[in-house]
């Protein structure tokens, strides 16, 4: 190499070539309104060239005072707010909250209600994973698989709408039951949906999973090991990708998950590729669970989906319209709300991102003292700074995608 081709001062001699260049670290602001940050998080990235030296994650842009709002209304009125935590899979948060309240009340919901809840949760889980995998493809510049993922999610949400009445903010689960029974044409339509989603997932798979560009972007990026996961209390697909088969549906079976046959997929390396594969496999398992729920619901036949105690669940409308006692009961339960015995309880469910827990404290009145949501997004996010130490800036995008931080849940 001679100075003729590199006429910069300081590079004239061979001795200078290996000299350490004193470059300054550059601080890059990414977000809060960057397409890849899903609108709600800011990264302060200290860069050495293209390598990340230090990463400061700043959350809170979507803080809406969820806990404060819940403590201002009755137990009943908190249910619609839980929809707004993880807006990709609202039913899961509904279920978690209602299970926690039911634990405080010491009641058990009818069997049919439990199967309906499981089915609705699994449909939401599919929607959540589809969003995660689809959006990750989009942000890695693969537009077409994103469209197939979103088509499947569209179908998923159509079926949530059939079941719950709304696509995103479902508000389906109630304390002591569910909003209403599934429509009569739902099982047939849902089976069509499952078949179509499997086709779309196969297309998605054939375009992405074995694709070299995709693998090059994901493999060995954002690696996290088992010990770091445990120290940071990381759960969900992120922990399972490191090979720990922790799944609340298996470990602390709630609802009727102990009667359902499904597998827990695990990875081994703990990189983004493993997380992607775990998510895809979980979608297939969720579809299996939905099928089993449909079969079981048809076997069970019509039956109650709500507890009959009018102090907990609002009385059935037929009675309210026609009989005096139920009308009085309706007035009492709406204006006062269920009175939850004093005490504290913590319930965890397996949400799409990990353990979603609710810690509730009641003083015996109709208004909660404390509604604490243990948000998996918030807790899975901090190790990201560790996972990306020394990595390239471009690795931040897939890593953040597969952590799947959802602003509503992280910031509450």
């Amino acid at each position, binding site marked *: 190499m001679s100075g003729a081709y590199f006429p910069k001062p300081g590079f004239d001699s061979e001795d200078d070539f290996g000299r350490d260049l004193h470059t300054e670290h550059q601080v890059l602001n990414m977000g809060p309104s960057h397409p890849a940050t899903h609108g709600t998080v800011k990264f302060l990235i200290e860069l050495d060239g293209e390598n990340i030296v230090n990463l400061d994650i700043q959350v809170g842009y979507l803080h809406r005072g969820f806990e404060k709002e819940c403590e201002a209304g009755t137990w009943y009125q908190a249910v619609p707010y839980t929809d707004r935590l993880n807006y990709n899979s609202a039913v899961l948060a509904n279920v978690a909250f209602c299970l926690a309240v039911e634990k405080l009340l010491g009641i058990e919901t009818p069997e049919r209600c439990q199967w309906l809840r499981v089915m609705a949760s699994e449909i939401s889980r599919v929607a959540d994973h589809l969003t995660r995998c689809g959006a990750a493809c989009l942000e890695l510049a693969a537009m077409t698989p994103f469209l197939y993922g979103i088509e499947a999610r569209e179908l998923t949400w159509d079926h949530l709408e059939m079941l719950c009445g709304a696509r995103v903010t479902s508000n389906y689960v109630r304390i002591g039951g569910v909003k209403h029974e599934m429509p009569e044409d739902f099982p047939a339509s849902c089976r069509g949906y499952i078949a179509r989603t499997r086709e779309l997932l196969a297309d998605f798979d054939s375009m992405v999973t074995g694709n070299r560009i995709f*693998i090059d972007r994901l493999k060995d990026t954002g690696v996290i090991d088992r010990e770091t996961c445990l120290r940071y209390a990381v759960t969900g697909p992120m922990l399972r990708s490191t090979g720990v088969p922790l799944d609340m549906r298996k470990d602390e079976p709630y609802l009727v998950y102990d009667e359902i046959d499904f597998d827990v997929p695990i990875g081994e390396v703990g990189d983004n590729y493993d997380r992607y594969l775990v998510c895809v496999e979980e979608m297939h398992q969720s579809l299996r669970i939905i099928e089993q729920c449909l079969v079981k619901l048809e076997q069970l036949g019509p039956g109650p989906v709500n507890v009959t105690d009018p102090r907990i669940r609002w009385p059935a409308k037929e009675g309210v319209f026609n009989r005096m006692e139920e009308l009085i009961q*309706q007035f009492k339960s709406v*204006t006062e709300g269920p009175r939850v015995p004093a005490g504290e309880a913590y319930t965890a469910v397996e949400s799409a991102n990990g353990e979603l827990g609710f810690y509730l404290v009641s003083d015996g009145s109709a208004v909660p003292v404390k509604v604490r949501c243990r948000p998996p997004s918030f807790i899975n996010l901090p190790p990201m700074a560790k996972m990306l130490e020394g990595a390239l800036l471009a690795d931040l995008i897939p890593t953040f995608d597969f952590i799947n931080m959802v602003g509503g849940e992280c910031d509450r």
Partner: protein
Amino acid sequence: MFHAIVRVVPGSVIKVRREEKLGFLERLYVPAIAKGLRVTSRHFFRNLRGFVTGKRRTDFVVQYPEERVDYADAFRGMPVLVALESGEPRCVACGLCEFACPTDCITIVPGETETARIERHPEVFDIDMSRCMFCGLCEEACPEEAIVMSREVEIAAYRRDDMYFRKQDLLVPEALLKRRLDFLRGEYRRASEPAEAGE
């Protein structure tokens, strides 16, 4: 500090199929491109066929203002008041929806009427749609089937004041809400059937 832990959970655990080493063909970009083209062209021709014949639409793009999707029966749009044939609301201003609403977006001022059948009616019934979150608790609380969730969602406005709906803006004749009312009555019937069978 940490033990090497992998507890065997009940039920089966499967390991994901991870392609550790790519084959020569996979490392070339050409087969991936061919595979991708095959999938996309299959989708393209299927959509094209559906679009031309109009038989089975598989494309998800809806030409919005001209075409609209049909929402499910259970769909919850904005809450409206059911109007009787006389044009008066069915509402008796009991205030249960006001109590049930988590966001306090309903304002009711009750008044008395001269007609014998319904003695109370709302003088004022306002819903602040900019706060309403379409949760449907008002509909569930109503003992008179007077407030229901319509199928209307296109309520965007340029000013906040335009999102404040008065009683007159909310009144909808019963005939227009037939689908929702039929759905609700069907649900109510189904909800009380098993209970009565068990008694």
